[in-house]
């Protein structure tokens, strides 16, 4: 990651031993699941600490405990040395602990200023004017990302995050918790975020960065704590990190997190098909000058054209909100177009709906797993056949055949290594990674000619991520086409035959595998001119 080298963290401050928050022996279980097991952690002033761990390691739970969202079953929390009880987020805020969540907590129909003052005003009347004045003095250089009266729903991700940070600072927070803050940012925005964090560190603010991105942690933290299986298994202090050999440190942390798993990149797999070398291989997916409108009536996909051949993975890089999700939905048949055509294997499926797209051989793995990807209250078995309810062997002439449904589920659970008690388990009970596997299994079981995946690895741990990427690569190698929409550039680079950049609803550039240039791609993602 090039950006990791661009930033050099400032040397640790002299008073960094001043402990802002300390947690000891934190335990938390949800039924049989032990999320946190006797965790102790110290957060110091003027220091940036990263909390690393794979999904399910318990870092989100721990963060929620410190943020006052969740009550621990055991252990204590101390702020400035004194034990406290954080029963509500309000309590945490009162003690100076502010949290920026992964899913932003801005109310869409309120303005920036209203969002910032929400929950802080005293008295009966709203006084937005005074609030605005206070904001100006808050932190020199930290300005509002847009006009104060702008509604939150009209802000970009990076802008919203900025508002979130201002929000917690406005409340006088001296301890900042950030949950996976870079998951929706462009490389430039990530740098902007890190700059702010370093400024805050200089001001004596304590920062806890919860992430699974190792390189970011290494780039900006003074201290790294590693969680695994609900336990805090290692802490790398400033002495170990400063001036350390980066690749060596990286390997060490990975082995701590996963216990010695090999770190071979997926792309080391020999590949026999490189798309642009087989000019005669058929176009499986042809998107021709498609325009689609968003919910405000303005086009989110604009005159976009794209062709995918058999055997290729096309990685579509872009910052969230530039039309990639909508493009995926258009191909899947979930969204209408106002202009243009979509052809799958030569067959036109434009605006014919999802059922026709499915019949034509389109698979779609959505990024919204629980919202639309599955029926949370349904069993794994039921969810696996959602896209082929009427088909034999699952149903004949309108009657369901439960045996066949069950057998299918068992087969897929085994093939995809889904960790679950059985096919009748409620899918909502599974972890994010396992739900993702089920969704992937569902799509792949039908062997789609064109598979669209939107951020299939978001929030997943390293092992599952590799599994997903490997599966996608195999699917493509079998003669199918994969459209991989993602904001994880390194993953895209690993598996794609071509990488395209989407910005403002158009594919602004396409790079074949051998010409991949991360900086250029990042620049284009931000709207730089091609």
């Amino acid at each position: 990651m090039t950006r990791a080298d661009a930033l050099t963290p400032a040397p640790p401050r002299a008073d960094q031993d001043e402990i802002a928050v300390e947690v000891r022996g934190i335990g938390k279980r949800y039924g049989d699941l032990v999320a946190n097991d006797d965790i102790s952690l110290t957060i110091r002033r003027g220091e940036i600490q990263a909390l690393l761990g794979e999904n399910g390691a318990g870092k989100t739970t721990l963060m929620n405990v410190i943020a006052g969202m969740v009550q621990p079953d055991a252990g204590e929390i101390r702020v400035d040395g004194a034990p406290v009880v954080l029963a509500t987020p309000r309590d945490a805020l009162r003690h100076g602990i502010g949290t920026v969540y992964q899913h932003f907590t801005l109310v869409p129909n309120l303005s920036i200023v209203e969002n910032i003052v929400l929950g802080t005003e005293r008295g009966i009347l709203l006084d937005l004017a005074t609030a605005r004045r206070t904001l100006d003095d808050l932190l020199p250089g930290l300005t509002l990302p847009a006009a104060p009266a702008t509604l939150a729903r009209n802000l970009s991700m990076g802008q919203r995050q900025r508002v979130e940070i201002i929000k917690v600072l406005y409340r006088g927070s001296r301890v900042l918790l950030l949950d996976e803050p870079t998951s929706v940012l462009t490389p430039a925005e990530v740098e902007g975020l890190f700059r702010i964090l370093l400024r805050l560190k200089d001001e004596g603010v304590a920062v806890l960065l919860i992430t699974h991105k190792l390189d970011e942690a290494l780039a900006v933290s003074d201290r790294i704590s590693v969680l695994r299986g609900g336990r805090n298994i290692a802490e790398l202090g400033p002495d170990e990190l400063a001036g350390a050999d980066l690749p060596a440190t990286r390997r060490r942390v990975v082995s701590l997190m996963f216990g010695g798993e090999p770190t071979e990149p997926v792309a080391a797999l020999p590949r026999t098909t490189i798309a642009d070398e087989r000019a005669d291989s058929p176009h499986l997916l042809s998107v021709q000058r498609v325009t689609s409108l968003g919910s405000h009536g303005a086009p989110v996909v604009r005159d976009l054209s794209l062709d995918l051949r058999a055997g290729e993975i096309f990685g579509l890089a872009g910052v969230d909100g530039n039309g990639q999700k909508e493009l995926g939905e258009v191909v899947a048949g979930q969204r209408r177009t106002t202009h243009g055509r979509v052809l799958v294997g030569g067959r036109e499926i434009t605006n014919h709906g999802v059922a026709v797209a499915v019949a034509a051989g389109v698979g779609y793995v959505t990024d919204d797993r629980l919202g639309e990807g599955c029926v949370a209250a349904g069993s794994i078995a039921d969810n696996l056949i959602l896209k082929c309810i009427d088909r034999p062997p699952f149903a004949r002439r309108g009657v369901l055949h439960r045996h066949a449904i069950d057998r299918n589920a068992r087969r897929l659970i085994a093939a995809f290594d889904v960790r679950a008690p059985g096919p009748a388990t409620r899918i909502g009970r599974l972890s994010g990674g396992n739900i993702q596997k089920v969704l992937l299994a569902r799509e792949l079981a039908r062997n789609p000619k064109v598979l669209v995946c939107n951020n299939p690895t978001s929030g997943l741990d390293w092992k599952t991520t590799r599994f997903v990427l490997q599966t996608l690569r195999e699917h493509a190698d079998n003669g199918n086409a994969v459209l991989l929409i993602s904001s994880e550039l390194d993953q895209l680079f690993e598996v794609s035959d071509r990488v395209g950049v989407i910005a403002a609803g158009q594919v602004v550039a396409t790079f074949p595998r051998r010409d991949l240039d991360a900086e250029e791609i990042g620049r284009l993602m931000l709207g730089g001119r091609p």
Partner: protein
Amino acid sequence: MNGIDWEVVLSVLLSGAVIGAVPLMVAALGEAIAERAGLLNLGIEGMMLGGAFFAVHAAAETESLVGGLLAGTGTGLAMGLLFGVLTISFRVDQVVVGLAITLFAGGLTGFLARDLYDGHATAPTSAPDLAIPGLSQIPVVGPALFDQSLLVYLTWALVPICAFLLGKTRFGLNLRAVGEYPFAADAAGVDVDRVRYAAITIAGTMAGFAGAFLCLGDLSFFEPGITVGQGFIALALAMVGGWRPYRIAVGALVFGLLRSLKTGLGIAGVEIQPDFLAMIPYIGILIALVVLAGRTALPAALGMPYARDRGRSERE
């Protein structure tokens, strides 16, 4: 047709419309507040009935109008609170709680009306009139709008009060946040439960008052089912009015007019079946809803306790 003083007739009809609009408007304002906080209160009909009966009952027992009004309003408050406890603290489905309250209140008030009053309870209605000098002299409109009981003026004042509450107070801001995205409000430190409790208590209080006014300020008696769906109309009115107080007030007046129309046409000698006319308000709402369909933006969290999946999963 001859010999009818049309000015007087129109004035009386308009006056009737204004008075008839009051219960609707008050109940709808309260409902708008509740819905802005994300609570769909189908118990509104029951709360109006409860307020109506206990207002009349108390007024009859204490021989005081104020006593009756207080009792009715208090009943609404209690029922609103009950709705709150069930849906907020116990997380019971809002639609079910609302229907249960309406069902129960209908039964309770009907029972007591039968048991205590043989089905028809009367009460004194003697609120002092206040004619605004000058304005009340305007022909036709004057007496209708400006020569009403104090009570009516009071309820009109509720409209700007509600508008102010929603737009310019801390509570209003919290309310708008809670109804749209309760998780964010919670994370910001707003006590979501408390805001919702306040909202539904206000809604219940206003619904109770609306019922009390209906039977004390307008009709002067109570019979089982006297509200005839006005609670639900108020619910629809809140939606149609986009949860904005001034629009709701206008909508309520339109309704009052439609109902006065019945009497008016009768006087004019036009033969229209009362049943036929009774349909008009409801059809009117439907048409209004269709016309406004594109522009009503429901508070996103309306009707949901926050994790909708879990709420639904038990319905197998």
